[in-house]
């Protein structure tokens, strides 16, 4: 079925049906209830499904794979905003911004089976060793209560699970240590990478491959990348990993996955969660009981659910004896620069990048945050998108497209922000969602170390672009920066129950049968995209739950 507006409205049944014929009743005798079917929840479920009775509840719909091209058309068509592509928005996803910095939450997540990986870019790096010891090594932020060594085997496993094409650390002297190669070879550098490489060589700056959760060859019964060029927000070929892979696998192994089942609160006694109370599209409410619960609802909805689950025993929110639930909200900050050359740069053939620079990452200290640089393959406008907006057609349009496309170059980068107690998610006092629950209220603040590091990243970017001979046309510095859509820190991990929400095993300090699988447990954020670390932690949570049961 074609047409951007022909896809089923996710909120009234992602498959175009009302969903009324789907059985959404609770599963009797469940061992494990997982809240959220993004990569974190899906990996936990898959890990446990063969030997345990697992049920997964997700707030959003099960999207029909046959709609992917029509959704992709939405990404190209000016009539649609990015959140429309995966039906994000409306009452269900209402939120308030109350902080110094605006946070575009609905650009930063997808609700549904597969979670935000349906939309994601798929760049997957390991955190560096120092990221786990920021306080000790860099003099700022807490240390994680676990080390790189604790996660290292799980990182390797996560790379196999997601299917990562990478350079195995061979061409990147700054990557953390690893024993085994990436499961697939890295994507070859792009033509524009070769231009950047010359400039970097002149300046003595390293440039190397970058790990992608995207098939550079057939893997796991999924297609290799075929160059649709629209990875973010839709990969129609399945070459880009998304969490439907592990949801499908968990279901095949016996797990029950219930869509459009937003958990309203977690019922509990003093030291255990007893049931996840969830709503269904028919207006009903159900109780899913289980021996163990894993909350994997993303970095904003996870703390929100805990806050919504307040009780006499936990008046400030469930598992919140520390007062840290919702606090220390962090994202990675974007730093970028771009311009044009007087020669073709061959952009927008693919929608991901193939080269990066981690050279400056470990220079971090009290004043300077870790940051990494990215060399884009999609600088400048895409001709198809340009063609659909404008007052011209025929020959004048073609001329405009020829003028607009062809010579752009751009670099991006991510910068760490420090955890701050006043950067936080709370429940809004005035506004409620479609179910009558208070919406998340975001107060996002950013520290000066991050802002000055963005300037430093810009300096390097501009130097490289100038060496390349580019006319620099834009710089996204401290005033123009924005979030990379990585929600972290809001249920931080700590050895000390007074300082954090979860222990080093990601189990809540307060409740013995409740784990959290999410970047919300990150005590500090580093500057690497978070999802490989989320995946590694989720696999570890799976083992922890299994051992406990």
């Amino acid at each position, binding site marked *: 079925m074609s047409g951007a507006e022909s896809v089923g409205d996710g909120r009234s049944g992602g498959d175009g049906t009302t969903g009324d014929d789907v059985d959404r009743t609770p599963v009797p005798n469940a061992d494990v209830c997982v809240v959220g079917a993004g990569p974190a929840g899906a990996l936990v479920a898959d890990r446990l499904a063969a030997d345990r009775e697992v049920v997964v509840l997700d707030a959003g719909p099960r999207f029909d794979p046959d709609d992917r*091209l029509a959704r992709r058309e939405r990404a190209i068509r000016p009539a649609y905003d990015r959140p429309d592509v995966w039906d994000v928005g409306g009452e269900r996803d209402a939120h308030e911004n109350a902080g110094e910095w605006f946070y575009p939450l609905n650009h930063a997540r997808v609700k549904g089976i597969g979670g935000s990986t349906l939309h994601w870019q798929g760049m997957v790096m390991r955190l560096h060793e120092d990221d786990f010891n920021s306080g000790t090594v860099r003099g700022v932020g807490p240390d994680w209560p676990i080390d790189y060594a604790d996660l290292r085997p799980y990182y390797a496993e996560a790379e196999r699970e997601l299917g990562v094409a990478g350079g195995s650390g061979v061409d990147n002297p700054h990557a953390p240590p690893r024993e085994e190669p990436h499961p697939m070879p890295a994507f070859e550098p792009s033509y524009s990478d070769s231009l950047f490489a010359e400039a970097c060589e002149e300046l003595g700056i390293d440039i190397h491959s970058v790990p992608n959760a995207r098939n550079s060859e057939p893997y796991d019964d999924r297609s290799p990348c*075929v160059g649709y060029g629209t990875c973010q927000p839709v990969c129609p070929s399945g070459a880009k990993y998304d969490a439907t892979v592990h949801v499908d696998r968990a279901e095949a192994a016996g797990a029950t996955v219930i869509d459009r089942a937003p958990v309203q609160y977690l019922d509990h006694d003093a030291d255990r969660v007893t049931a996840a109370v969830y709503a269904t599209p028919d207006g009903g409410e159900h109780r899913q009981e289980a021996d163990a619960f894993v909350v994997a609802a993303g970095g904003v909805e996870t703390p929100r659910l805990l806050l919504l689950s307040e009780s006499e025993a936990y008046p400030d929110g469930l598992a919140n004896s520390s007062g840290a639930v919702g606090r220390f909200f962090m994202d990675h900050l974007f730093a970028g620069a771009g311009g044009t050359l007087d020669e073709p740069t061959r952009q927008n053939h693919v929608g991901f990048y193939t080269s990066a620079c981690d050279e400056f990452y470990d220079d971090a200290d009290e004043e300077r945050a870790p940051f990494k640089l990215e060399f884009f393959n999609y600088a400048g406008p895409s001709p198809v998108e340009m063609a659909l907006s404008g007052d011209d057609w025929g020959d004048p349009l073609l001329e405009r497209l020829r003028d607009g496309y062809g010579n752009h170059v751009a670099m991006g980068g991510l910068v760490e922000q420090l955890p701050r107690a006043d950067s936080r998610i709370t429940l809004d006092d005035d506004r409620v969602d479609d179910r009558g629950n208070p919406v998340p209220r975001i107060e996002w603040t950013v520290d000066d170390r991050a802002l000055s590091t963005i300037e430093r990243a810009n300096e390097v970017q501009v130097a490289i672009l100038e060496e390349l001979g580019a006319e620099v046309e834009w710089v996204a510095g401290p005033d123009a920066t924005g979030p990379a859509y990585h929600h972290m820190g809001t249920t931080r991990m700590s050895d000390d129950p007074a300082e954090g929400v979860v222990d080093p095993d990601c189990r809540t300090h307060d409740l013995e049968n409740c784990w959290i699988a999410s970047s919300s447990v990150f005590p500090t954020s580093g500057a690497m995209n978070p999802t490989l670390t989320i995946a590694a932690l989720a696999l570890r949570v799976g083992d922890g739950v299994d051992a406990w049961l």
Partner: protein
Amino acid sequence: MELTRRDAVAALAAVGATGGVAVGVRRMQDREGGEDAATDGASAGDPSDRDTNEGTVRATMVAVAEVVYPGEVDGIDEFVDRFLDGRLDGSAHASGLREAVGELADASQAWHDAPVEELPAAEREELLRGIGADTADEDPDGTTAERVRYYVVNDLLLALYASPTGGELVGIENPQGHPGGAESYQRGPP
């Protein structure tokens, strides 16, 4: 530059329509002139699908394409026809497209006293501008101008510029929306 069958297939792939056997049959019947057969799409569809006759839809779309496509492309007729084979697939989009074409055809009759495809190119362009499709932002649920922009003008532009030949016109042989492989990004300019 000649638009080929491959371009039409690519344009359809870009929007998630393929055109199937049932559609092929319909085209044959269409050629034989039966109006009912012509409007009876691959699936039951919406009753409003039948509002604008298949021949008019196709002829109007080709006539508009001749205005909105650059002068240097050839083979428009067949390209648009094949694109519509898949696009008129019984979806909500197909009925929206038919409706928008119907309104454009009505305006043509009212203002120029002739169907769109019989107007000289300059008048066709005048018609499109008169209806406001040049300055309107596309919107599938909007005013006539916004819907003509969405379903007619932009559907045609999307089809062209997501196809390899359309991409090549601009200098990108693997445009966004076209699965042109994971090698072209590595190659330098020709």
